[in-house]
């Protein structure tokens, strides 16, 4: 455990001096803010429209609970942003150690492969958590003008961490296969984008395939959390991806020593 924490701590420290990580965090925060304010303005206008309809005609086509709708939409968009951001955060996890030769230090130390992989995963997910922090003032801003919807916010953030964790674990595995950071990023994009949208491929009817792919999709599984629902099945689903990613990464790191050079 001490090895894992030491590796995690080093990983976090290196994120905070990495221009890539700062660029990702900055753009992520900026675009998140853009999405959030646009949605807030849009739905507040819709709600005002609905109010005036109700006043004039006694009824309205819209029944809007602005905070809930904004949060649901917002968290779905954030899932999309994570898909773009995470591969950039994971591309160097093992690849960079191989490039710098520090993998030789890790593998000749009395440290097991799972400790290396676990430490890197913890470090990356901790950085992701830090990256999500600037969202809180946005929620507070909305909370100040209406209701807080603490439940939706909590489940939404948890959902993002679970989704991000699955993406990180897969990215970590891809990184352990690659000697080149760009290849590592592209490979991870291929994997997480496919898993994000896999349910849209054969969605013609209610066949077994549609159901199967639907239950595999990151997007479909993530939806609940954007609506304030914390479902055990979803947690198990994302935890399984994390476990699979870490398992493959550990096997891959252990196998690195069999590669030439």
């Amino acid at each position, binding site marked *: 455990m001490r*090895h894992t924490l*030491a590796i995690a*701590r080093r990983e976090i*420290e290196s994120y905070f001096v990495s221009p890539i990580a700062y660029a990702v965090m900055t753009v992520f925060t900026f675009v998140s803010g853009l999405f959030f304010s646009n949605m807030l303005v849009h739905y507040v206008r819709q709600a005002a429209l609905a109010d005036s309809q109700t006043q004039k005609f006694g009824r309205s086509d819209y029944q809007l609970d602005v905070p809930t709708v904004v949060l649901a939409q917002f968290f779905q968009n954030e899932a999309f942003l994570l898909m773009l951001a995470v591969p950039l955060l994971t591309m160097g996890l093992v690849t960079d150690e191989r490039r710098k*030769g*520090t993998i030789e230090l890790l593998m000749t130390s009395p440290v097991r492969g799972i400790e290396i992989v676990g430490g890197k995963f913890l470090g990356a997910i901790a950085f992701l958590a830090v990256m999500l922090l600037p969202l809180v003032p946005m929620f507070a801003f909305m909370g100040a003008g209406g209701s807080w919807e603490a439940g939706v916010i909590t489940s939404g953030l948890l959902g993002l961490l679970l989704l991000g964790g699955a993406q990180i674990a897969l990215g970590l595995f891809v990184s352990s296969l690659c000697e080149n950071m760009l290849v590592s990023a592209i490979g991870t994009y291929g994997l997480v984008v496919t898993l994000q949208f896999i349910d849209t491929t054969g969605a013609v009817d209610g066949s077994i395939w549609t159901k199967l792919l639907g239950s595999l999709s990151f997007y479909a599984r993530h939806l609940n959390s954007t609506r304030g629902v914390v479902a055990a099945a979803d947690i198990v689903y994302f935890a399984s991806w994390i476990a699979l990613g870490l398992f493959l990464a550990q096997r891959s790191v252990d196998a690195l*020593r069999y590669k030439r050079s």
Partner: protein
Amino acid sequence: MVSLSHLTKKYGALTAVDDLCVDVREGEVLGLLGPNGAGKTTTLRMVTGFLPPSMGRVRIAGYDLFDHPVQAKQKVGYLPEQPPLYPEMTVRRYLGFVAALKDVPAARTKAAVSLAIERARIEDVADRRIATLSKGFRQRVGLAQAIVHEPPVLILDEPTSSLDPKQRYEVRELITALKGRHTVILSTHILPEVSDVADRVVIINRGRMMAVDSPANLAWRLRARASVKLEIGARAGDLVLPAEAVREALTAMPGVLEVRADIGAAGTITARVESPAGVDLRAEAAALVTGRGWQLLALSGESLSLEEIFLALTRSEDQGGA
């Protein structure tokens, strides 16, 4: 302390290291000498557990590296050819990280890091980021990480290659200072390095062990010769001194085995007089040259270096293989 038995590494049809057997005694400094591509790095990587051998065993301080990798690795400090540094970290933080990896108890980490910094003589740069350090300092930080957990066994892969002569001298000094505290295996293709610090030398070429012995014994076993190099002015007024005359005169001295004399640059003759090891002909040669009235420009004595031994060994191997 470290025992390699029948250590072999094959990459497909290529055998990088072939049936290496050596026992390194406690406190001994073993030099691994060979040209680039001889299998030195591969050997050291197998000893540190970075590469699994195709065949053979490694035992470190009584622990088999395959059966008890954690215990065996705790006993080893390793400086790879490229020091495994994180450029964004400060030296002190980096060493703390390595100490945690190497199972130095948390309570002792700070003291262990300070001691390693002191022993590697990097106090002045201890709080600087590694990215800002010169190559020589990086190499010393690499050395500090190898000794931070005070391992009984120290493995250094080409510790002075790619350094300038001053840095090379300083790092060699450090290694000499580590002698006695650790059992050391170091590889190099720079010969004076092993003859300076090593108690025994293993010469490897193409993955095969050519010889194991002390530097002095290796020289003796090859019936090493001593030699004197002379530089003589060839022009005396209008006359030009023929190289053949110099050769004849020097060959006539007692105790000479062989003389070579050639026309050198800018009107000089260079001559090389070889004699059995231990026979010093410098004074006689000087007296002879000046006695003839020739101009003696330079004179130096040398005994057969490891370089020549090494060349002799690898050359005979190449001929045998052809």
